[in-house]
């Protein structure tokens, strides 16, 4: 600590003795208000009408059926992955490789769909979904094994395996699974209708995958709050030593966290491929696995919170596209705006739990 004092002799973050419950709930709301304020300033500086900009960003996408269904389509993978990650993060198990598990879900499920290209049976879809989920689960099991057997850092292994998974998909689509009628372009054949998730609303892309996401949120909520396993996961995260004394099997919980988060990421991957894309491409995810980490924290690692966080994140993407089309805002502003939102959320969170102190010595040290 003393080194920090030399650089910043005046300002210190001190943990608050009591964290006010009211402020914990209010902090995301305040963060959103501050984001809106900054938005007004930025859009004005860019020479755009700030209210029109905010309107096209946050309200207009919700005024059409198309906008609402697209919001749900975009939020689905984020929520599915985010819920799984949140369970692991609660238990201090850091699965950073959801992108790879998502991709492996797409590989296993999509591969099954390609194998069953000429099988006309209603059993194809369930098979595709199960194998997709198993693909993600399998990819999540590798870092779990390395962690429990060799104590290898799961952040590194899971992250590295993401790149392996993405390259694996790329290899398959450039090689053995390439559409023979596709002029050598790296795309698989388009799946048969039997391998596609049913569309819920005609003329939209809203498919059964969204229902899975809602179901998963409910099940995860019950798991975390009403079962002994959920209790164990939370205790391991909050107080690992206490968990040890209580006799909770740490390695079991690591396995469980990885299998749940990997499986859900795999399900998200196959739902994306057989729900919205309809074929395998060299890349099936615009970084959902990484964005879902933000979504998990934004939702305070609570399944219902993750649901809302996923929706907000999706809205900011769709709003950003909308703002480009309608008022010619550059794409960079979307990124900037998301960054500001996250910054304020985290800053408010820190200030709820800590306070900025002016003294040059920590209060705790002074008391000694």
């Amino acid at each position, binding site marked *: 600590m003393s080194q920090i004092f030399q650089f910043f002799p005046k300002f210190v973050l001190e943990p608050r003795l009591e964290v006010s419950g009211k*402020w914990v709930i*209010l902090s995301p*709301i*305040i963060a*959103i*208000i501050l984001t*809106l*304020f900054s938005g*007004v300033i930025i859009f004005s500086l860019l020479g755009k009408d700030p*209210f*029109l900009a*905010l*309107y096209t960003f*946050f*309200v207009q996408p919700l005024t*059409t059926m*198309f906008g609402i269904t*697209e919001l749900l*389509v*975009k939020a689905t993978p984020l929520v599915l992955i985010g819920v799984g990650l949140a369970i692991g993060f609660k238990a201090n198990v850091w699965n950073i490789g959801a992108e790879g598990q998502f991709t492996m879900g797409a590989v296993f499920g999509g591969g099954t769909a390609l194998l069953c290209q000429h099988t006309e049976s209603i059993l194809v879809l369930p098979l595709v979904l199960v194998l997709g989920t198993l693909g993600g689960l399998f990819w999540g099991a590798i870092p779990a094994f390395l962690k429990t057997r060799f104590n290898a850092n799961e952040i590194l292994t899971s992250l590295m395996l993401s790149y392996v998974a993405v390259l694996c998909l*790329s*290899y398959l689509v*450039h*090689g053995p699974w390439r559409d023979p009628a596709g*002029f*050598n*372009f*790296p*795309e698989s054949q*388009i799946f048969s209708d039997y391998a596609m998730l049913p569309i819920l609303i005609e*003329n939209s*892309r809203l498919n059964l995958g969204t229902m899975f996401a809602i179901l998963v949120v409910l099940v995860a909520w019950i798991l975390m709050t009403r079962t002994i396993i959920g209790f164990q996961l939370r205790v391991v995260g909050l107080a690992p030593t206490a968990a040890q004394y209580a006799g909770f099997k740490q390695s079991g919980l690591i396995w469980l966290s990885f299998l749940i988060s990997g499986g859900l990421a795999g399900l998200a991957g196959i739902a*994306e491929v057989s729900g*919205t*894309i*309809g*074929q395998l*491409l*060299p*890349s*099936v*995810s*615009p970084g959902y696995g990484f964005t879902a980490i933000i979504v998990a924290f934004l939702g305070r690692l609570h399944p219902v919170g993750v649901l809302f966080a996923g929706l907000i994140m999706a809205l900011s*993407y*769709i709003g950003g*596209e*909308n703002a*480009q*089309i*309608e008022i*010619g805002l*550059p*794409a*960079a502003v979307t990124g900037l705006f998301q960054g500001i939102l996250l910054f304020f959320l985290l800053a408010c969170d820190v200030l709820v739990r800590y306070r900025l102190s002016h003294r040059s010595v920590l209060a705790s040290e002074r008391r000694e």
Partner: protein
Amino acid sequence: MKTEKLLFGLLILAAAIAAAVFFYKQSQDVSKKTMSTAEDTKVGFVYVGPIGDHGWTYQHNAGRLALEKSLGTKIKTSYVESVKEGPDSERVIQQLASSGHKVIFTTSFGFMNPTLKVAKKFPNVKFEHATGYKRDENVGTYSARFYEGRYIAGVIAGKVSKTNKIGYVASFPIPEVVRGINAFLLGARSVNPEMTISVVWVNSWYDPGKEGDAAKALIDQGADIISQHTDSPAPLQVAENRGVKGFGQASDMIKFAPKAQLSAIVNNWDNYYVERTKAAIDGSWKSQDVWYGLKEGMVKMAPYTNMPDDVQALAKKTEDAIRNGELHPFSGPIKDQTGKIVVEAGKVADAGMLLGMNFYVEGVQGSLPK
């Protein structure tokens, strides 16, 4: 007490902003009605990179600006940049179609199936997809014969290189890119049979960091000519810093490498965008497949710089020969890497081979990722 007051104030402010944003709609609807007329044709563009990539997307955006300049008040253009190939692109294309755009240019190969899906739902909207091979009643495709420019670049490289090694920073092993690599080497070997090409795949269209690293690695391996099939000027900038030569990609990048750029293969979409939009306005638009080159002006060469006069003259001669049709870059005899003759002497590669090219010609190092 203090915090309660502060909270109360914040909530009031939030409510005020929310109300302002919601009620804004009504006033806006009125002003929109008065502003736009029925004759306005809205033209939409979907870009895969940022317009500031100074390469592929930059040139498409230049085409959009030329369109605005040429047709002025008759049209209104909008664009969405950095659109990911995949499900996001389908949403963006549909958003453009459903917000009244009559012509939509989707400017990356990966937008092919999404473009076709949306086109089925909007039969009255004209879609133009760059570099694809699937068409429909209301979906046309267009691309340019960039390999013509690559061949000229190869000729220059063959004359200028001292190490006889070309470093090639490539994006994805699709036929378009493989064709460029082969054309480059055929051009180089037409003047210097010792030339070889080493390729680094960066698996991205736009990633300046990776592109630059690939160029550094290639120069370390002895390449003294850098060519690229990625969209940023990063490889050329590395060439400039390391004192080797290179070529600009998609746009004239001379300002990024005043001492290193030998020339650049410039994509020129201006005329095409104006023609097709005019056709859509006057009702003569029909789905077609266009593959224009130097002759039609869709491919242009930036000024030949940083080379001796005789090389410059040879480059100009080659350019003229290709433009007149006297020279086809893929003229036989052409051997693949195994030494097998794939195009016999006196013949040229047919369209099928060009469009689906998935082999390296003799002289390219390494094997094609499959």
